[in-house]
C-alpha cells in the first residue's frame, strides 16, 4: 500500500496566530483517515494547505509522491474536495453545477455520467432544480457529487456532516464507506465528532492548537483504563456526598449540572454501579462517553481539564 499524503513539519502562521504548528502525518492508499480536532484546532487550515488555498509558512506536502508546490496541477487533477460548507452556484441547477465543475476539472462529462453521479448521492430527481431551493443536506450531497465527478483518487472532506440531521449523517457515512471499500478511494475526512470518526476511520489524527496530539487506529487511541464515564442519578446532592466519602472520590473529574463525570478503567464500572446502589443512590444512567472532549479529558489531569474545556 503506498503513501498518498505525506505532510512534513507543516506550519502556518497568521500574524500572531500559530494556526498549524510543525504538523506531520501520512495517509495510506484506500484508507479513511480521520482528521480530528475541536473548532479552531487547525483542521481547516491544514486542509486548505493540502488544497493550495493557503500557502504554508514552512513545511512540505507531498501527494501521490509529488511535491504539491511543483506539481500542483497534476495533483489537483486527482483530488476531489468539499471544503467546509458546500457552496455552489445557487442560481444554477444541480446538473449545471456538476457539469460546470466536471469541465473545470478537465473532463468532458456525458449526461449519463452526470446523472449517475447525482443518482449516487440521491439527487437525480432534483437534477434540474436550482440549488437555491435545496436544503443544507442536499447541498452537502451535491458538494460531494462535485468532489467525485472527475473520479479522483483522493477525496478530502472537511466536516462533511456539519448541519445534517441524523439520517443525513448516516447517508454521508455510508457513502464514505462505499467510496473506500468498493471504489478504493483514499479519503481524508475532518470532523470534531470522535464518535462519528470511530465508525469509519481506519486511522485518526487528533490535533489541538495546530499541534499533533496523537495519531493511530481507534484501538491504539483509546485506553480502556482512561474511560470517561457519565453518571446520572435522581438526587445529585446525595450522590455527591456518597461519592465524596467513598473510594470513588479520586475518580471524579467534574460535575456537569446534575451529572457526574468520572475517569476510570472500563472494568470497574460494574463494581462502581453496585457500590452506588448499595449506598442507596438511585442510578438513572451510567455510560462510557466517547466525544473528542472526553478524549482530551482522558489525556489530562483533573486540574488541567478545567483549562482545556472551560477556555
Amino acid at each position, binding site marked *: 500500500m503506498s503513501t498518498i499524503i505525506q505532510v512534513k513539519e507543516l506550519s502556518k502562521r497568521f500574524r500572531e496566530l500559530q494556526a498549524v504548528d510543525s504538523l506531520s502525518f501520512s495517509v495510506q492508499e484506500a484508507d479513511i483517515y480521520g482528521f480530528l480536532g475541536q473548532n479552531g484546532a487547525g483542521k481547516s487550515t491544514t486542509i*486548505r494547505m493540502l*488544497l*493550495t*488555498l*493557503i*500557502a504554508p509558512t514552512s513545511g512540505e506536502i507531498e501527494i501521490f509522491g509529488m511535491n504539491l508546490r511543483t506539481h*500542483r*496541477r*497534476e495533483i*489537483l*487533477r486527482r*483530488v476531489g*474536495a468539499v*471544503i*467546509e*460548507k458546500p*457552496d*455552489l*452556484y*445557487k*442560481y*444554477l441547477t444541480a446538473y*449545471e453545477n456538476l457539469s*460546470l*465543475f466536471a*469541465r*473545470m*476539472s*478537465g473532463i468532458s462529462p456525458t449526461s449519463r455520467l452526470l446523472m449517475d453521479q447525482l443518482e449516487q448521492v440521491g439527487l437525480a430527481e432534483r437534477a434540474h432544480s436550482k440549488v437555491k431551493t435545496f436544503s443544507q443536506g442536499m447541498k452537502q450531497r451535491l458538494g460531494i457529487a*462535485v468532489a467525485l465527478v472527475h473520479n479522483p483518487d483522493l477525496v478530502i472532506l472537511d466536516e462533511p456532516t456539519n448541519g445534517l440531521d441524523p439520517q443525513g449523517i448516516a447517508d454521508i457515512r455510508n457513502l464514505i464507506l462505499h467510496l473506500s471499500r468498493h471504489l478504493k478511494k483514499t479519503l481524508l475526512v475532518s470532523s470534531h465528532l470522535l464518535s462519528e470518526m470511530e465508525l469509519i476511520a481506519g486511522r485518526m489524527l487528533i490535533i489541538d492548537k495546530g499541534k499533533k496530539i496523537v495519531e493511530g487506529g481507534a484501538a491504539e487511541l483509546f485506553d480502556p483504563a482512561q474511560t470517561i464515564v457519565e453518571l446520572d442519578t435522581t438526587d445529585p446532592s446525595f450522590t455527591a456526598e456518597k461519592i465524596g466519602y467513598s473510594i470513588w472520590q479520586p475518580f471524579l473529574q467534574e460535575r456537569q449540572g446534575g451529572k457526574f463525570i468520572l475517569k476510570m478503567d472500563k472494568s470497574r464500572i460494574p463494581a462502581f454501579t453496585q457500590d452506588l446502589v448499595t449506598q442507596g443512590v438511585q442510578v438513572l444512567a451510567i455510560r462510557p462517553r466517547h466525544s473528542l472532549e472526553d478524549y482530551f479529558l482522558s489525556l489530562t489531569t483533573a486540574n488541567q481539564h478545567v483549562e482545556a474545556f472551560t477556555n
Partner: protein
Amino acid sequence: MWKLLQIELFKIFRRPRTYIPFAAIAAMVLIIQLGLKFDGRSYLELMMSSLSDSFYIPYNMIMNGYLVAFVILNTLLIQVPLLVALVAGDTVAGEANMGTLRLLVTRPFSRTQLMLVKFGASVIYTILLLVWMAILALFLSMLLFGTNDMLIARNNVMEQIRASDVLWRYIAAFGYATVALSTVAALAFLLSIFAENSIGPIVSTISIVIVLTILSEMRIPLYDNTIKPWLFTSHMLAWKGFFYSRSNGEGAAIPGTVENLPAILRSLGVLLAYIVAFVTAAIWIFKKKDILS
C-alpha cells in the same frame, strides 16, 4: 483556457442581474430617441442658439440618425463605466461571497489562468454591452431618423462630415470606448481581489471614477500638465477625436481624416498601460493570497 472562458461566460449570462445594465442602456437610449423624435427641433435650437442668428440652419437635415447617436454616446459613455463596474467588481468578490472561490482555486488550473479568464470574461461583457449600445444608439437611430451628413459643433464652429464618411468613425469610436471601459473593468477587477462581497469593489470603483473624472474636468493650471495627463479618466472621452476631421484651406473637412490621430493613440496607450498595470497587479496579488472565504 477557451473552455474556462466559456464556463465563465456561462456563469455570467445565467445570472439575472447581468441583464440589468442591458435593460438600463435600452431604457436610456429609447428615452433619448423618443424625446428627439418628437421634440428634436427644440433641442437643436437650444444647442445652436449662438449660431442661428448668423447662419441658416437646416434642422430637418441635421436631425438624423448619426447626430442622434452622437448625442446618445455623449450622454451615455459617462454613465456606462458605472454599469461595467457592476459586473467586473463582482468577478472575484462575488465568488468569494458565494463561497465558490475556494472550489475554483482547487481546480487543476493556475491562479493566473483563472484571473486572465475572469478578466477576459469581463472584457467580453463590456464589448457586448457596447455592441448592444451600438445597435440601439446607432443602428436603431439610423432606422428611426434616417441618415444624412453629420454636423458637429465644436468651439462655436460647425463641422460637417459627409454621410459616407461617418460610419467608420463610429466603429473606431466604439472600438476606443471598448478600451476605455475595459480600463474601468480592470480597476473593478483589481479591487474585487481584496473584498469578500461585491458591494465594496463596485462602490470603490464608482467613487474612484467619479473623483478622477471631476479632477480631469477641472481647469486648474497646476493639475493640467502634472496630474491630468496621467489620469485614465482624462483619456476616456478621447473617442470624440474620431469625429474631428482635418480641414482643407477653405475650412472644409477632408473625408477619411482625423485631426489629431497621435493624441488619440497616445490616450489609447495610456489606457492600455492602465489595463496591463491593473490586471498584472490583480494576478500578482491573487497568486499570493490565502483563500480564507
